[in-house]
């Protein structure tokens, strides 16, 4: 395993802002891992995402993606085709009137031959489970479907990394589930590196690593079990641990002694059941 994205003491301030949105942040993302980035609004999550494909470049410090410095203009296209980016509002990232034409947009920009674009479009739509909708008009799809089309749109660049900036914020529970299972599959089966920015804790349960941002720097990072079990930290960051952790935590205060590293509902219930039966 090697680090595929590296932030080195990155500072960034939006033009016209008084406060820095990133204050010397350093982090590293492993190739092929599923990383969730959490934090309250204004913690710098989106700025981090935009640094990952050189939409923003650091005021000072350095961001390296696949060994390339994002501040070097000559790397721009190479970085962007390697880091697919999906945003919150699916309506504002779909450019064409027909699903398949939209997915073709990126490979067309890259100057790929027609026949290969066709293949890429079909295989990308297949990966997100939207192949049967390829002739549909995007504005008639549901939010979750649109967002999966947007994911297919970046997959068609065949990137190694996909960064999603709150992709589920505008979706209903079904749409959220579909999007999260799609990106989990991309990571586990297609070995892509996935960076998911979110404030829904339940979406991070399957992540390899969780990074909690606060005021432009890293407040905590580690496997989700570890981070979520620090209930005080989660509260302080305006986040809330999953109910499974919270209930075990409160039961511990009543005389139980559960480890707080269980995130699954079933495993949590099993532990409580075992403890109750042994009495």
């Amino acid at each position: 395993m090697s680090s595929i994205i590296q932030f080195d003491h990155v500072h960034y301030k939006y033009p016209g802002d008084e406060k820095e949105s990133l204050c010397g942040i350093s982090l590293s993302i492993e190739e092929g891992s599923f990383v969730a980035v959490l934090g309250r609004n204004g913690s710098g999550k989106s700025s981090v995402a935009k640094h990952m494909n050189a939409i923003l470049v650091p005021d000072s410090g350095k961001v390296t993606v696949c060994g390339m410095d994002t501040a070097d203009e000559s790397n721009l296209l190479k970085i962007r085709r390697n880091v697919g980016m999906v945003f919150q509002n699916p309506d504002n990232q779909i450019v064409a009137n027909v699903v398949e034409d939209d997915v073709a947009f990126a490979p067309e920009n890259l100057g790929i031959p027609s026949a290969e674009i066709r293949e890429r479009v079909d295989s990308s739509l297949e990966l997100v489970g939207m192949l049967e909708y390829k002739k549909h008009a995007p504005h008639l799809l549901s939010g979750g479907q649109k967002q999966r089309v947007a994911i297919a749109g970046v997959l068609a660049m065949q990137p190694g990394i996909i960064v999603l900036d709150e992709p589920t914020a505008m979706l209903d529970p079904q749409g959220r589930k579909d999007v999260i299972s799609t990106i989990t599959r991309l990571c586990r089966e297609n070995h892509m590196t996935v960076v998911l920015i979110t404030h829904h804790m339940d979406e991070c349960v399957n992540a390899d690593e969780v990074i909690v941002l606060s005021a432009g720097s890293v407040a905590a990072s580690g496997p989700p079990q570890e981070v979520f079990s620090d209930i005080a930290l989660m509260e302080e960051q305006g986040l809330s641990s999953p109910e499974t952790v919270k209930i075990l935590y409160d039961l511990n205060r009543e005389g139980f002694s559960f480890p707080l590293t269980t995130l699954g509902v079933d495993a949590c219930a099993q532990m409580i059941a075992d403890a109750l039966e042994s009495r």
Partner: protein
Amino acid sequence: MLKDITLGQYFPGDTIVHRLDPRTKLILVVLYIIALFQAEGWVSYAVVLAVSVLCMLLSHIRPKNLFRGLKPMLIIITLTALLNIFYTDGTPVVPGWIITWEGIARAVKMILRIVLLITGTFLLTYTTSPIALTDGLEMLLSPLKKWKVPVHEMTMMMSMALRFIPTLIEETDKIMSAQRARGADFETGSLVRRATALIPVLVPLFVSSFRRADELAVAMECRCYHGGEGRTRMKQLVMSSADHVALLLGVLFLAGIIVLKLLGL
């Protein structure tokens, strides 16, 4: 509801007309419009009418859809017809009347001309997807690139505008409902009052359009958009023999109308 507006809507299908190359259809529409304006006599009008009816049948477009598209033009059509009826000199229908036989003939021709003009352009937009249309336009106009005309950028903007029309219509609907819920009234009052009542709709619509444009631009950059240079196409436009035949027929049609004109028919 705003959603019901047909604005150059595309009806997907698989007819001969649908399958023609968009470039062919664009050229044919131009030929058709020239022919329409060359038509003077009744025979010429009859030929143009017959040709457009034939194309409609071939494309399986229901007349109902066509009439729905014509509806908004009704006022203009009636107005021109009335003007022609009342302001043409000639033999009065009844002695002493202002209405003349010539006026009626001219009014009928005027109506025919407008309706046929709209029919022709509608046939194009009904049978050609907006993307194909802008692609075709870009390729037809591409010789202009030599003179630094930004053909790609212009057609890109066009297709983007087409893409966002439904989104913006939906948004307008939503904002109007929201302001109605706050007691805004769009239906009553004088014209000035009704115009000012639209401010609470137009301002948010503008603001959100700019936000959308901003986000869209970033999303396009993320997908490696860097202008038309070095761009390829998934759907290559290929002229088939059907296109060549159609173009030939189009030229013959125009030539025929011109001959009829010279013959005074």
